[in-house]
């Protein structure tokens, strides 16, 4: 970290990282002012995949916006279905039957594992290792097949409905999920041996891109990024919703706030999500998957409502203002990566280019979710 104030180096040049760049995993452009290989200032430029979901929300009925939530963060789309379903159920006062809540938690946690596996592969790919990506995709494929057999989709799900879920699981879903968990439990030590304990990874991630708890609080960072800096905040524990209180799982928190800490938080979260899915499968109750008297046309009482869920990348909040008609008056989507990325300008200052990319990978960005 050179002392930037002193380096009045005349040859500071602008380097455009993106929008087409292998390490940005989407169309994010970062305008870097570089002095040699040190970054003088980094400024992310957004808007390359902006589709104005919030305006779409205002000219669609409540139910018609559900497919849009799957397109926000397509790696963890079920959490977004869950976030939107919860806020409308809260606004319209719809109860969700027990079995539907269990199915929601199981599918969301499986989706979280799939999202973390894909992040793991892409992150090590950013650091230069190609093979772990293929191994992680091999495991992730099993989850996608399981979710496809239930919801019909592999990436952009539209499975939740207000008051429950679209359809029930078929009979080989439960044994399939148990087999997957057994297999992933065997594979995780191999990932740790191949990557986590590898000296090159340790040298590349330890003390790289330190983010302090204060910086997280000032920028509103949540999810694994905040938990990597010692902030014990997870919506499933701090603001219990759905049937999460019935399961016992813990929240991995690491103190030192560097890329290694954020990496370890996500790797441990895979294990925790597996524990949740197992407990949920053991206690899966019977019964309907859809509340009985859900009105065909939903007209929530006027007023504004807010609800949050723990998506794979942080707190996904939906603020809805209803004026009693069947279309939302205002629909605000609070995307976790938007705030996580906003600290990049301050965090990446003075770093080397390679370390800045390791930091960006550890923030686990999904660009369509930032631009909305």
């Amino acid at each position: 970290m050179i002392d930037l104030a002193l380096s009045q180096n005349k040859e500071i040049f602008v380097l455009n990282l993106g929008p087409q760049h292998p390490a940005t995993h989407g169309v994010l452009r970062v305008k870097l002012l570089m002095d040699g290989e040190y970054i003088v200032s980094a400024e992310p430029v957004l808007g390359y995949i902006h589709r104005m979901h919030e305006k779409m929300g205002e000219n669609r009925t409540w139910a018609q916006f559900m497919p849009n939530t799957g397109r926000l963060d397509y790696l963890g789309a079920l959490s977004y279905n869950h976030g939107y379903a919860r806020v409308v159920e809260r606004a319209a006062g719809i109860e969700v039957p027990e079995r539907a809540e269990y199915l929601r938690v199981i599918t969301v946690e499986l989706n979280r594992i799939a999202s973390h596996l894909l992040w793991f592969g892409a992150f090590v790919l950013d650091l230069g290792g190609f093979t772990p990506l293929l191994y992680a995709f091999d495991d992730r494929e099993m989850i996608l097949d399981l979710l496809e057999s239930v919801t019909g989709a592999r990436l952009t799900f539209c499975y939740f409905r207000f008051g429950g879920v679209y359809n029930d699981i078929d009979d080989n879903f439960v044994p399939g999920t148990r087999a997957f968990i057994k297999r992933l439990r065997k594979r995780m030590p191999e990932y740790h041996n191949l990557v986590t304990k590898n000296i090159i990874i340790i040298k590349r991630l330890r003390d790289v891109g330190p983010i302090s708890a204060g910086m997280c609080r000032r920028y509103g960072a949540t999810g694994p990024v905040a938990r990597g800096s010692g902030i014990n905040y997870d919506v499933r524990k701090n603001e219990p919703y759905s049937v999460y209180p019935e399961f016992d799982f813990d929240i991995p928190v690491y103190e030192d706030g560097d890329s290694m800490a954020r990496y370890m938080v996500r790797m441990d979260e895979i294990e925790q999500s597996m524990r949740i899915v197992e407990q949920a499968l053991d206690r899966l109750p019977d019964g309907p998957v859809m509340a009985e008297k859900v009105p065909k046309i939903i007209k929530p009482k006027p007023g504004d409502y807010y609800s949050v869920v723990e998506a794979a990348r942080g707190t996904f909040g939906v603020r809805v203002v209803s004026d009693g008609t069947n279309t939302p008056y205002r629909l605000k989507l609070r995307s976790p990566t938007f705030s996580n990325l906003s600290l990049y300008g301050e965090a990446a200052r003075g770093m080397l280019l390679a370390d800045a990319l390791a930091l960006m990978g550890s923030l686990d960005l999904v660009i369509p979710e930032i631009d909305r």
Partner: protein
Amino acid sequence: MGTYFKDLFGGTWSLIVGLAITIKYFFYPVVTVQYPRATLKMPPRFRGHIDLVADPGTGAPKCVVCGMCQRGCPSGCITLSGEKPEGAKKKILTSYQLDFTHCSLCGLCVESCNFGAIDFSKEYNLAGPSREAYVFDLLTRLKERTTNVDNDA
């Protein structure tokens, strides 16, 4: 000085362990499906584009032209029209067009149809030369399906 040697020997050991894992997988069987030669079977709930369902008895579409699917679709992909011949009491379908370029496969149309007249097809490799190739006329597709079902049955 201690960490220097710990890094050196611990590091080299971690490198060797890494090599051992990859060479093990080098001799493992291949997991990929050779796509053009072998294809995967789609699960029953796979969501291809929607298709009309024929009434098993008469072979005519079950659709009663109520337009619920047209209104339910968030992206307005479905345009259908029907007319009521004088004698009959029910409308019959004259044209059912799906603009698959806008469809987001959300399933709201299939869900809103209480006559079970449309369902997801299992087609996934749809290659077409132009956008217009994706505006399907589901009625003619249904007729083709039922005709060649008859002649090869």
